[in-house]
């Protein structure tokens, strides 16, 4: 007998005392919990995202579409980044104001090559206000999972309010499980030494999130 059959047989014998139950799954589990917590306007939801991102030590910037390229250019320059990883489908205009050398996201790049790049700029799939989380789904403007992992500096652009949801249940609805997904809440961190939080053990030590809105009157708070 294969171990597969052995284990499945054990499960069936172990459940011999449990009566037949053909309740459809949708009815078997009560889902009386909330879809989101509290009532907020769209602006308040975006504010909460900014607040919770900052609470987990991400650096948050806000700007309009028109100001985005200049802001990204300034962030890369302030960091002294000479090279920047670029997903294949990233809006070219976003990098219109930087001199940093572009390194394309290529399947054949070795981890050592990625390790020599200073920064990475990506978009995201969705952002969750209540938890301060951005989610990447490997789309063309986000690239392979490793490009947002190996470099030490990640700039992530979130379109507000379109890409922002309030809570985890709403985010899952928007995501496709068939894609590789990475949920990011602040930069890499550990609390393994006396529970003192330290940023940047293995992932990027700096996470900068740019909340970009289409409204021309949105204020810039760098």
């Amino acid at each position: 007998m294969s171990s597969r059959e052995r284990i499945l047989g054990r499960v069936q014998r172990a459940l011999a005392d449990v009566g037949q139950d053909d309740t459809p799954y949708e009815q078997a589990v009560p889902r009386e919990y909330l879809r989101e917590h509290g009532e907020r306007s769209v602006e308040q939801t975006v504010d909460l995202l900014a607040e919770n991102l900052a609470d987990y030590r991400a650096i948050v910037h806000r700007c309009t579409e028109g100001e985005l390229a200049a802001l990204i250019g300034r962030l890369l320059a302030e960091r002294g980044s000479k090279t920047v990883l670029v997903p294949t489908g990233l809006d070219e205009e976003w990098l219109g104001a930087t001199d940093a050398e572009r390194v394309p996201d290529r399947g054949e790049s070795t981890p050592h090559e990625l390790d020599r790049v200073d920064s990475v700029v990506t978009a995201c799939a969705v952002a969750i206000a209540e938890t301060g989380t951005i989610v990447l789904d490997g789309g063309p403007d986000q690239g392979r999972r490793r490009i947002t992992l190996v470099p030490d500096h990640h700039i992530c652009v979130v379109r507000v309010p379109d890409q922002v949801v309030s809570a985890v249940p709403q985010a899952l609805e928007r995501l496709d499980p068939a894609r590789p997904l990475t949920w990011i809440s602040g930069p890499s961190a550990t609390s393994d030494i006396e529970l003192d939080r330290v940023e940047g053990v293995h992932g990027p030590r700096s996470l900068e999130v740019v909340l970009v809105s289409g409204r021309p009157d949105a204020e810039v708070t760098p």
Partner: protein
Amino acid sequence: MSGTFVGMPAFPKAAHDAVHNETLRGNLRHATHTIRAKRANAVAELSDWAELREAGKRIKDHTLRHLDRYLVQLEEAVTAAGGTVHWAADADEANRIVADLVKATGESEVVKVKSMATQEIGLNEALEAEGIRAYETDLAELIVQLGKDRPSHILVPAIHRNRGEIRDIFRKEMSEWGRPAPEGLTDTPTELAEAARLHLREKFLRAKVGISGANFMIAETGTLVVVESEGNGRMCLTLPETLISVVGIEKILPTWRDLEVFLQTLPRSSTAERMNPYTSMWTGTSDGGAEAGDGPRHFHLVLLDNGRTDTLADEVGRQALRCIRCSACLNVCPVYERAGGHAYGSVYPGPIGAILSPQLRGTASDIDASLPYASSLCGACYEVCPVAIDIPEVLVHLRERVVEGGPVTREGNKVVLQPAKGHAAERAAMRAARWAFTRPGVLRSGQRLASRTRRLHPRTLPGPGQAWSGSRDLPAVPAEPFRDWWQRTNGGNTEKGTSK
């Protein structure tokens, strides 16, 4: 479960030694109290915590009730997405599968994500015996591995070490395993974390094989989920060419949507955060299509039983399989706080370990027979459990099993467990009592004899009863048996001063 720490004394002895270690107690007290307070705040942010907890419990119970169906569904989904599924009935089989898979790649070293399942089966040691070196990449696991130590907490395995001890371990041991600690390393957490970053990065960048566990597996889609903080998980899950995940069969959730419950309750219960820094989700391999080359080209899922189906067979104890390994129960437990994780003699310490280990391993050894007693039954563990495991109920149930014996399932077979030897005196006393209580004449004579000789009774019991009376006062025998008094006074009505 082969993860028994060899030569481990029973809990009372191990705990006795641990509570006299002042450093250990200080480290543990600081850690558990800090995280306990933070967790309470994080949970208080969600007004629907009770409903989330109930939903989590019901999802897990439903899954366990139909586990065979969901395992088959998961296997189909993972296979359809390009992965390969293996089934392991016990630790030895799981270790052999993993070792063979690693050997087939031609590699002799692997990087590992912190995983309770691979600790439980002793994978690192098994690989070592096959000439394969396994590098732990979680900072705490690295500290434990370099210190030739054992983990003492589910979430923060090096919780028993302070910064000075960690610096000493890094200075002394890092060069044995790869890049040495930087010159002049101090004991600030930032410097220690940086030393670990440099030490491990060279391993990540050259690794061809990664090994992980998983927090959740989605039957509907074949998706695996790993929740972490440092990014070492992401490194191991995405950079190597081959990924092998060893996961307990109870970690299944039926649907994608179910994650909405656990991604809210797990981070808040474990690290007391709204969300942990990194969560990775992958479905099979991402060969072909637009995301060509995103992540490992080969993915193997090893489904592990190792005592879980035996636990499932126990009507009371099976609820332990709901556990999502958040470790909230450890941080509130007054016994864990003083005894530390090592005293439990298992990779699963604390209240959940006290019910999980004796079920996964059976209660044949001294340490496993003693674990159901490693509790004051205060109930704090049940209060904080995000899937509402009634740990005190299972503890009492397991105590009964240890004392009374009875039918249990071991390796899929029904066997009758003998009562534990240590309780022979108690059982003998109970048998004598039953004999006397069913013979009124004998009971009366015995009571009269006891009353008349009361001045001669010792203050402590002799022989096997000594341990019992060592910490208890023996009840004083009255001058006259109750039944004699009742007959003499007509229930108190004719006695002077007591009549109404």
